[in-house]
């Protein structure tokens, strides 16, 4: 289970023949993402196979317009690799074609252009992720973005972040201690983004397969504070937060009047305080994000009210967490084990639609130890991917509550085995 994207996502790449578009399309195809079409104005009809080191494992048909591509291929997600000067136009074209989900990777789009895009979005049925973001990944199902696929693992932690490489760091920490991810969403660091923390948290909160939520923020703006207020009011799942930039000097990026409308918000201290106040588990160190999630799962299973903890350095604990998790027996739900590159052993099934309100399918993925990816010696840009079509699709089973419980119990069991002696209340 996941939010927004899964193996049924039919992906269109805008700017597919550019160098970025080509490289990342080859990477996405290797991951097993169902790329159904590309758009490059003037190149309609081309069966594009990549170029140079970035040749595709299968050709992708190119169209002149998003609208043509949608008609021909029923694409339901678009990813944009168009240069900054033309990227806003590309987003508007996708909105006009009624694309349900648009992911814009492009960095450096002028704010004036994004103001127009935001206005168009508000009057549409489309959702935008980004711009200036790494994209979105549902491990084992599809990667629609530029993140390294192999650090992710199938699991139950939803991750939402404004950052790129810092998200990879957090995801790797999770994977290393055996906590896989349901979906990871990079919302982007620009002043105007299509999807905010609060939107992503709503999605994760509604997703029965997401058992814990990680939000990784940065200084500036007030999106983290708004998300914290929402968490306090509505979210029942444990939420772990981290704010980067506690040591950043004030005033380097924010204008003089910038602090006024946000009512003095925007500093790391204020964000951390708002998160703690909302019962969010705040990781004090970026090295402890994964560990804090593990502890949060334990704490919430123990007491109904969430407590705020400050994760402390504890390597022994980390080892123990890892070992404990690997001991958890796999549940069986009848699905054949499928393993992606570097992902933990375990089966995963496929959500039938991207619709958030779609019936939730049953779960029961066994928790497995994380198998580290072997280094790829040749062709670094193209790690071996899952062959196309290897994802086994499952029909939705209606009575899934029991199965879901078993997952929850697993998480609880994992968490309750964690040594809590080092956890201190902040």
């Amino acid at each position, binding site marked *: 289970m996941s939010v927004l994207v899964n193996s049924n996502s039919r992906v269109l790449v805008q700017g597919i023949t550019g160098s970025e578009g080509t490289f990342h399309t080859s990477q996405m195809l290797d991951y097993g993402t169902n790329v159904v079409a590309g758009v490059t104005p003037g190149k309609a009809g081309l069966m594009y196979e990549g170029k140079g080191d970035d040749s595709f494992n299968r050709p992708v048909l190119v169209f002149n317009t998003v609208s043509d591509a949608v008609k021909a291929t029923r694409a339901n997600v678009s990813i944009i690799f168009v240069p900054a000067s033309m990227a806003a136009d590309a987003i508007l074209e996708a909105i006009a074609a009624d694309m349900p989900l648009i992911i814009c990777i492009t960095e450096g789009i*002028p704010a004036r252009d994004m103001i127009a895009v935001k206005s168009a979005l508000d009057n549409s049925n489309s959702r935008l992720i980004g711009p200036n973001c790494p994209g979105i990944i549902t491990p084992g199902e599809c990667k629609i973005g530029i993140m390294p696929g192999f650090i992710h693992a199938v699991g139950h932690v939803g991750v939402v972040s404004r950052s790129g490489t*810092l998200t*990879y760091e957090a995801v790797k920490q999770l994977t290393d201690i055996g906590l896989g991810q349901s979906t990871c969403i990079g919302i982007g660091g620009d002043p105007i983004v299509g999807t905010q923390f609060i939107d992503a948290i709503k999605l994760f909160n509604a997703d029965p397969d997401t058992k814990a939520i990680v939000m990784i923020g940065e200084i500036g703006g007030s999106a983290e504070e708004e998300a914290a207020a929402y968490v306090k009011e509505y979210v029942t799942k444990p939420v772990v937060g*981290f704010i980067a930039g506690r040591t950043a000097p004030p005033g380097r990026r924010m204008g003089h009047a910038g602090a006024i409308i946000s009512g003095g918000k925007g500093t790391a201290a204020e964000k951390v305080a708002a998160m703690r106040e909302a019962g969010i588990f705040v990781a004090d160190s970026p090295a402890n994000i994964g560990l804090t999630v593990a502890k949060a799962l334990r704490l919430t299973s123990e007491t109904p009210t969430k407590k705020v903890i400050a994760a402390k350095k504890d390597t022994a604990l980390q080892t123990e967490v890892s070992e404990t998790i690997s001991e958890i027996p796999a549940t069986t739900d009848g699905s054949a084990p499928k393993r992606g590159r570097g992902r933990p052993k375990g089966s995963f099934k496929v959500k039938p639609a991207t619709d958030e309100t779609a019936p939730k399918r049953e779960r029961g993925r066994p928790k497995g130890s994380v198998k580290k990816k072997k280094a790829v010696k040749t062709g670094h840009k193209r790690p071996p991917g899952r062959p196309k079509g290897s994802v086994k699709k499952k029909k939705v089973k209606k009575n899934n509550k029991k199965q879901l419980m078993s997952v929850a119990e697993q998480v609880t069991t994992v968490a309750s085995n964690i040594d809590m002696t080092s956890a201190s209340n902040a």
Partner: protein
Amino acid sequence: MNIHEYQAKELLKAEGVPVLYGRPIMSPDEAGRIAYHEFVMKGISTVVLKCQIHAGGRGKGFVVDAESREKVMRYGKPVRGVTVIGDGNIADKAFNYALSTFGNVLVTVQTGEQGKTVNRMFIEQGCDIAKEYYLSILLDRQTGKNLIMVSTEGGMDIEAVAEHSPEKILKQYIDPTIGFRQYQARSLAFGLSLQGKAFKSFCSFIEKIVAAYDKLDCSLLEVNPLVLTKQDEFIALDAKINFDDNSLFRHPNYAQLRDLAEEDPLEVEASKYDLNYIKLDGNVGCMVNGAGLAMATMDIIQLAGGSPANFLDVGGGANVDRIANAFRIMMSDRNVKAVLINIFGGIVRCDRVANGILQALKQVEVNAPVIVRLEGTNAAEAQEILRNSGLKFLVAGSLEDAAAKVTEALAG
């Protein structure tokens, strides 16, 4: 990107926004000459001399001697960042004030104690002020719209107004599909209790400045104070503009407005190589890929007992030249006692980064301990390369390990 007040006023004037007559000056001689020929001879009896630095609070700031750091005196009083000259020999006084200011340092609440060297000034005609107001236009992240704010509390510290009496700040959002409308201008004018000629002047002023904000691709335009003259006309007495850096490609003419003297020399050097570098006051240099991870790395340096000497994002593609240049810039900061390299290799392979670091170190002399943490694709190979290099690296595995090694390096 920041520009000076006189540059902002030139741009606004070209868009029809009322500003006072003024001229930039680059030396004390020029101050005397221009004051005489362009002001006194034109019948202007009051002039205002203003320091041009990229920081606010100038009127309340003091000029201090660049060497002795003592307040500079002229005509028996300490020289401030803004001086009104309304009597005596105006050209002579302008020259003398400029002589006391050029090359010295202006210290204001916004510059911090070190202050900023004054290399440019601005001479402007005086005006009869009836009342001071505040105006700014900026991008509101929350709504994704531009926001206009005005207040009767002009010339004040607006943050304090926002905190203590937020009801005194009037706001109007600009809807991008319908634009700024007259009723919004009227609403603000009524809110400021304006009447008659002043009401009309305000409405005209605000329409022009909103249009200028949009056309110039600003991310912030602040007029504080916005003044109402005794003739009931609104004039931008000060002007601060920040451009949206993402839009600079649309305005090639902005490049000439950049004043490199206002920027840190190392930051200027870094920008030549497209490196995102910000100099800080700490003792641990750091080199990271990605802004979020860079900030997190700075945080972990502090948790390890050090303090970050810089913010440095080398971006995704960490090639040898980039790393070498980044190293050179980072090491030219003499406060650096240790270096932490933290690269998360996602798309970029860590073994390539490791080789880049080795080659870079052949080009740059490094006297401080270097802690390297490469994580992600081919991280194990990268660690082997570094360990077998014969160079003295402290190779760290996790972020936590890196922090511990920073602590060790600082202790040793």
